[in-house]
Structure formats: structure tokens, C-alpha cells
């Protein structure tokens, strides 16, 4: 199985449904923070151009807010593709984006447990 097949399997997404309207990126609340935007994730996975995505900080900028999933007129679910590329990256040996020993300096007295749980689920394996 190559990287593209792995990502399609993890995500369960059919990237060929995408009609390139760009609505996912247009509605993304974190668009400005991303090097590659949701619609680019979809077509770069479809075309097998995955290496740049695996190395990009954009993997860690998706909020999983499901705005793109809700508003896609073709039901492509771009957030699930981004999640699958991120998992493909952090499941590699030593590739965790957040390490537990760095967390104490990033929190304050109000930090909710929910934030730490979410971060470890999203950024490390």
C-alpha cells in the first residue's frame, strides 16, 4: 500500500467527488494560518503529491471544526483527508508534533483538561 492508498483508507474519503469549487477553503476559519488549504489537501492527495503535505505545518492548523465538512456541496469531507494525512505523518517513528515534556511551559492555571486531551489525540501517537 502506498501513502495515497493509506490516506484514502484512513479517511474513508472519495477525493474524486471534489469539483474544485473551493468552498471548503473559503469557509475555513483558519485559512490565513495555512500554507496548504483544505481544497489543496484534497487535490494533492488525489494526484499523489503528498510529500509536501506531510512536511507542512498546515497539518497542525486544521481546527477539526467541520465547517468544510458541513458546507461542501459534494460531501467530500476535507477535514477527514487532513486528519488522515496528519495521522500518516505522526504515526511515523519519533514524529509526534507535541511531546509531553514540553507541555508544562505551554499551560496556565485555567487550561482545561479538555485542551490537553485534544492536543495529545491530535498531535501525538
Amino acid at each position, binding site marked *: 500500500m502506498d501513502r495515497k492508498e493509506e490516506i484514502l483508507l484512513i479517511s474513508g474519503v472519495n477525493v474524486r467527488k471534489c469539483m474544485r469549487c473551493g468552498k471548503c477553503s473559503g469557509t475555513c476559519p483558519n485559512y490565513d494560518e495555512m500554507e496548504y488549504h483544505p481544497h489543496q489537501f484534497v487535490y494533492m492527495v488525489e494526484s499523489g503529491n503528498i510529500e509536501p503535505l506531510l512536511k507542512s505545518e498546515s497539518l497542525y492548523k486544521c481546527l*477539526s*471544526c467541520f465547517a468544510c465538512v458541513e458546507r461542501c456541496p459534494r460531501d467530500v469531507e476535507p477535514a477527514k483527508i487532513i486528519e488522515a494525512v496528519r495521522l500518516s505523518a505522526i504515526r511515523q517513528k519519533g514524529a509526534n508534533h507535541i511531546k509531553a515534556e514540553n507541555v508544562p511551559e505551554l499551560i496556565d492555571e485555567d487550561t482545561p483538561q*479538555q485542551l490537553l486531551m485534544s492536543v495529545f489525540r491530535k498531535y501525538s501517537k
Partner: protein
Amino acid sequence: MVYSYFPGCTLKSKATELDRKARLCAAALGFELEEIENWQCCGGVYPMAKDEIATKLSSVRALADAKAHDRPLLTLCSACHNVIKQVNNDMLKDADIRTRANNYLQLDEPYGGETKVVHYLEVLRDEVGFDALKKAVKNPLKGRKVAAYYGCLLLRPGAVMAMDDPENPSIMEDLIKAMGADPVVYPQRNECCGGYLSLDDKEAVAKRRNKIVKSAADFGCDCIITACPLCMYNLAKNDCDVPVLYFTELLAQALGVE
């Protein structure tokens, strides 16, 4: 009605007022919250990967426990609600996930998504009813201008969460009216607060916070209400000095149960 209650990690620590006041209000409105024994954290975010089951098991355990008691499962935190309801949908509709989760858990009776998952707000609307709630209000919040902040987790994906219209929700505005206050509708009420980015990228979250709170303030609110501890954390310290409250705090005031 008795509900199997899943409080979640943060309601036992940083968001105790969300939990405590919900319990007081439930008692005043005549429904019962029976906390699930030995519940485990939901994980905070819905695990989207089709090839993972470990990250879904805590939700399945809670759902199976509610089923064993023949009760709906009630949540209060938006994240717990989103995770447990989406996992329940997987257990109902995804045969692969259902089979693998059951093969692992070896429950007395296999779980297949039978439990109904309801959010506290839905109980207020669908079981208590906003008309009855209005009659139970002892201190109407007259003159208060309250902006409901839905964020992302309560509403999306709309086909699964099915709480309200994901683009034009009204459940919290109807609650605000029932409490005697005026709801403030503003453009950013169902856009994400920045979520879990606030550990790693505080600047990006500050941009989200300012956009959302300014949007609510521009439409004339005097406070914002939320159901989510992470939205609370991300929005609370804002440049507009708009107070952010859990919806249960305002409800407890209105019902006079403090």
C-alpha cells in the same frame, strides 16, 4: 425522566460550575442525572480515522452502560457530546467499526448504537419545554442582552448531531428568551473559537477570539454564553471585556437555585 449522565474530564476540574449548576437546575426542573459509574474521558476530539477503534472505546463503554440501564445518555460539555454522538453513529452505521469494537470489548451484549444521546439543551427544549421552563423562572433576566456562542461541536456535522439547523440555530436563543432576556444574534456564533490550537498557536486563537467576541459586542451583547469549557477558555479573556458564562450559570440565576 432519569438520564445516564456523562460529565467528562473538565467538568470535574476547571468547569465545575457548568456541572454543579446543571445538577441544581435539573433538580428544579424535574429531571434526574445519574452519573455513569467509572466513566472514562471521551478524548476531547472525535477520532475520524476509519482504522482506529482504541480511541472510540471510552465512548462505547459509556453508551453500553446507558443501554444496560435503559436510559438516554446525557452530556453537557460540547466536546463530549460531539465525540460520543459521532461514535454512536459509527457504532450504528459502520459495520467494520462496530464489529472490531465489539470483538475487543466482549460486552455481555454487543453494542450497536442503540442508546439515544442527548445534550442538556435538548432536554430543556424537548423534555422540559421552553414554555414550562419560562413558568419555572423566578428571576427573569429582564434587560439582559445575551449572545449565544454555539461554536462548532454542538452543531456539526449537522446530519449526525441533528440538534438544530447548523447554519441558523435557535435552541440557545429560545432558552435565552425563556429566561426573560433578549438574545443577540451575530455572524460568528457558529464559527470555531480556535479549539485545541490554544496550546500550540496562541496567536491564531487570539485572532479567532477577537473576531468572535467583537462580532457579539458589535451586535450589542452584555455577555456571551457557551456549553464548552474549551470555548470558555479561548474566549474568556477578551479585549472587549465581555463576560463569558456557562449557560447553566445564567439558567441557575433565572431559576433562583443558587
